[in-house]
């Protein structure tokens, strides 16, 4: 263990300012899970294949298992914990729940973040575009169909209420 490589982590996480000393030289995923105890972001493969560690970095979906933690300094990170609360779900979360797009739940946080990333850019995606949008997220339980339906319905819900997929706006 090297006690010398402490870095000052100043960033915004789920809308709140974080400023703390932390051991550097790790992945953003480790910082989120071990230091901030935001364990909603999961490690399924640790090599950028499964997408269960997906978070938004300055609004874009990235894999936190391939992101050095220091890259997040001065930036904004949104994890699943910042998306919606049990009493105020994001339409993507509510639609996955309604459609039965959640089984073991291990891929769900990453899947929700990827769906939000997609709907922010493309409020009216075709099925093909939804498939492409979540192609970086593996699910071993559902067979994807119900996840795709869920995202379609979330898109409809957002459009009909005149909101965007942006986290703040969608859960307003």
């Amino acid at each position, binding site marked *: 263990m090297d006690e010398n*490589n402490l870095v000052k982590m100043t960033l915004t996480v789920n809308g709140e300012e974080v400023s703390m000393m932390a051991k550097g*030289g790790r*992945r953003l995923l480790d910082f989120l899970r071990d230091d901030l105890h935001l364990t909603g972001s999961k490690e399924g493969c640790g090599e*950028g294949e499964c*997408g269960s560690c997906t978070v938004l970095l300055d609004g874009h979906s*990235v*894999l936190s298992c391939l992101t050095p933690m220091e890259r997040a300094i001065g930036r904004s990170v949104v994890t699943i914990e910042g998306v919606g609360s049990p009493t105020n779900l994001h339409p993507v979360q509510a639609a996955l729940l309604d459609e039965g797009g959640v089984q073991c739940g291990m891929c769900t946080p990453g899947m929700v973040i990827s769906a939000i990333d997609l709907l922010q850019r493309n409020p009216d995606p075709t099925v093909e575009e939804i498939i*492409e949008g979540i192609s*970086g997220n593996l699910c071993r339980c559902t067979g994807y169909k119900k996840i795709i339906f869920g995202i379609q319905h979330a898109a409809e819900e957002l459009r009909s209420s005149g909101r965007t997929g942006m986290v703040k706006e969608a859960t307003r």
Partner: protein
Amino acid sequence: MLYQKYEVAQTLAEALSLLESHNGGNVRLVAGGTDLILQLHERILSAEVLVDISRVSEMRGIRQDGDELVIGAATTYAEIYHSSLIQNHAPLLAEASKKIGAVQIQNMATLGGNIGNASPAADAIPCLYALDADVVVASPNAERRIPVAEFHQGYRKIDLKPGELIKEIRFAIPPEGTGTAFYKYALRKSQAISVVDAAVCLKIEDGVIRHAAVALGAVAPTIIRSPEAEAVLIGEPPSEDLFARAGEAARKDARPIDDIRGSASFRRYLVAVCVSHAVRSACERAVR
């Protein structure tokens, strides 16, 4: 720890001086990090210092410089396929960018990283071979400009000296009448390394192909051009028969190996399929 120290460069000069100040130590540049962080995590590579070049303004974005297009080395694939300059002048590069990893990887990974990683199965590099692009390398005192095919010297071997970095990629804007296309075959549509890919850039004048560049990925220790396919195409009017013959000809230049993603013979078969598809799309775009 994956590394001991993380330095962030804001300008090219800063990046070069950080590289210089750690010269002799185990220092590596990080842009997207999608290859590097994984290789550090799996202990395939080691590093003491990482220099973050993802915010270096001179190395970001896509612009036109006279009759050339310039892509900063730290430009992400998402930025490339969203760029109207790329979509209009080099649609093959937009196509290839959409086929790299999946959305998250496209949001992170950079063109310069793909060049530096020098994988023979890289998806963007065949496009640069087909466009006859140059790599611009910067050092504290000078810049050099090297054709991309010369920059890649061998299997995962590039012409980059200590203290140097890949700054940008430049290529001539293809003239009127040019069509370009990229075609990839992999075991999945996303998140998959190419089994074979092909990039084509050709120009049609008076109904006849006057210029043809055909590049192949994942069939040799580096990306290669296919002189055989190019010779078949030049001087001929586009036809289904020609597309098939170009594909067959390209097989003569492929030197594939057996690996986990496909056998050498399967790859040789795929070369013809990928090349004829890419040539057909390029011809369609050229006459439009």
